[in-house]
């Protein structure tokens, strides 16, 4: 399943736009590189002294350092101090203070531009520098806003994805627990039946057996006693049979399940005739598997109602010693179904939770196939 399957539409749109997530970073790099290049051209045209070249190399190195290690953003203070220092040797270098201003605003820490602000206040340079500083601050702010927006969108996407995966995982756990509970219930019921037979019918039958053995021994020597014991044994056997009958009567489920339910579902479907065929031994199928098969059949018939106008629906249940396969197929499909809907996805997950699979095929007709494994008894 796609990772974005559970995300809302607005967030999917955000995801599409987020592909350009690092574009603002690229623009910032280009802006800084342009600044360094202009400084170099200025240096070539004006001073060409060693102080200017040193400043250029120091600024370049620090810029690369921040690019390589983003947490070192505070080093822009060093940039500005270096520029202020070099202004005493090369006056034109003060223009590069605009880069410091840009970085400080872009990083969202305007206080890092204090050296530039102090220099502007104390030395009162010409208005072109103020203009440059304002322009850099503006560009920095625009990119900062862009970055913040993208980061916020990313954060929200992460949160929603995290919630989605948590829900999915919770659902899987619930389904697994469901299977577990069904198995536990089966074991518990099995234990109850054993106890019922042992405690009631079992005692009567054992007593009858012992009476019959004694009667057999007394048959030659004391026929009247043997006859009495024989009658008693018959009475005990009758009582035991009564207990067994009662136990079986008590164990019979009130609600219908299994093949009967599936057949009844097919009979109740009035949209078109449904042919239901069963192959194999239905007693091999566990209760929780019947629940899934029933849900599959319901989903398939609902799909027929929604998307098809068939002449006939055919449902086949194959039960082999190792797998159960339910296949529901119909003709007269009006429109092709794209990706699996919620109902089908849930079914797939439920089948997956018990080691099975639900798939669809639309080549010549619509076909829904559910395959479940049969666990060996006691496994």
């Amino acid at each position, binding site marked *: 399943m796609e990772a974005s399957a559970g995300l809302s539409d607005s967030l999917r749109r955000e995801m599409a736009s987020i592909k350009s997530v690092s574009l603002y970073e690229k623009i910032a790099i280009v802006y800084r590189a342009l600044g360094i290049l202009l400084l170099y051209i200025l240096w070539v045209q004006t001073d*060409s002294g060693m102080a200017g070249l040193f400043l250029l190399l120091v600024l370049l190195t620090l810029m*690369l350092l921040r*690019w*390589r290690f983003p947490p070192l953003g505070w080093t822009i203070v060093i940039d500005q101090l270096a520029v202020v220092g070099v202004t005493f040797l090369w006056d034109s270098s003060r223009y590069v203070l605009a880069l410091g201003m840009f970085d400080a605003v872009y990083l969202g820490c305007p206080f890092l531009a204090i050296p530039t602000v102090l220099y502007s206040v104390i030395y009162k340079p010409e208005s072109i520098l103020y203009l440059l500083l304002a322009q850099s601050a503006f560009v920095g702010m625009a990119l900062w806003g862009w970055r913040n927006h993208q980061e916020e969108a990313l954060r929200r996407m992460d949160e929603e994805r995290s919630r989605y995966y948590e829900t999915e995982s919770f659902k899987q756990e619930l389904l697994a627990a469901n299977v577990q509970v069904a198995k536990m219930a089966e074991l518990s019921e099995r234990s109850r039946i054993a106890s019922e037979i042992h405690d009631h019918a079992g005692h009567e039958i054992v007593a009858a057996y012992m009476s019959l053995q004694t009667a057999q021994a007394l048959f030659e020597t004391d026929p009247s006693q043997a006859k009495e014991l024989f009658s008693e044994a018959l009475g005990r056997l009758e009582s035991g049979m009564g207990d067994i009958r009662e136990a079986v009567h008590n164990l019979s489920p009130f609600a219908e399940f299994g093949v009967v339910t599936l057949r009844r579902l097919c009979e109740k479907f009035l949209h078109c005739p449904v042919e239901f065929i069963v192959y194999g031994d239905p007693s091999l199928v566990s209760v929780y598997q019947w629940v899934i098969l029933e849900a599959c059949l319901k989903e398939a018939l609902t799909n027929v109602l929604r998307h098809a106008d068939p002449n006939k629906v055919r449902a086949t249940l194959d039960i082999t010693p190792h797998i159960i396969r339910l296949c529901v197929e119909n003709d007269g499909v009006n429109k092709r179904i794209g990706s699996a809907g919620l109902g089908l996805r849930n079914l797939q997950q439920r089948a997956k939770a018990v080691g099975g699979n639900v798939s669809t095929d639309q080549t010549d007709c619509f076909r829904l196939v559910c395959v479940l494994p049969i666990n060996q008894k006691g496994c």
Partner: protein
Amino acid sequence: MTIFRFALMRGLRKKSMFAALFAVPLAMIFIRPLWTPENGAGFVFYGMVILFAAFSLVRLIMTDRVSGTIVRIFAAPVTTFQYLSQNLLAYWLILGIQTVVMVAVGAMLYEWGIEMAAQLILCYTVFAVASIALSLAWTSLFRSKVISDAVFSIVVSFMALLGGIFIPLSMLPDILRKIGMLFPTYWFSNSLLGIRDGAASREYWLSLLIMLLLSAASLLYGSKRRLE
């Protein structure tokens, strides 16, 4: 230091590489006209030998990256810093040994004196650092070794031209000199001029400092691109 040890072994494994690293410089040092005080071309040519040797060694990192070996290396608990630092240190050590051998032989043959020999060793080893860093930054730009090699040869020829390898720095036009100042070859030639002018000259130390700054910038760039 496993990576360091293997980088050393790998650097010296190929006979062609071994010959380029040691035979060529040693052959150069015996060509007496190259090392006369008037000519001095040998000093700058040896710089080019270092530059190409550094590039050949750093190509091994590129080979790791292109062949996908780097993915397997990083499957082990190895950080980018450990991988790069140990590889580059190994290459620098190879170039350092080569330089020491070369200068020692030169000092014996041409009576350079201890001070000049020490200055030459320092100058060459700093230039070796700059060459390794530059090669790392350069190789990080490319995915194909063939293109990287071809373009590097062209760029190096320009660097050599602007850096005073073929033409003395004093003869270069002002604008070309200023462009050349952006490359380590310029400062390498400048430092050699500093040695010629006299011990502990300002130009010499300044050139070394700028070469180190350029190395830092190149290392920072080369250590990130397409390596992680």
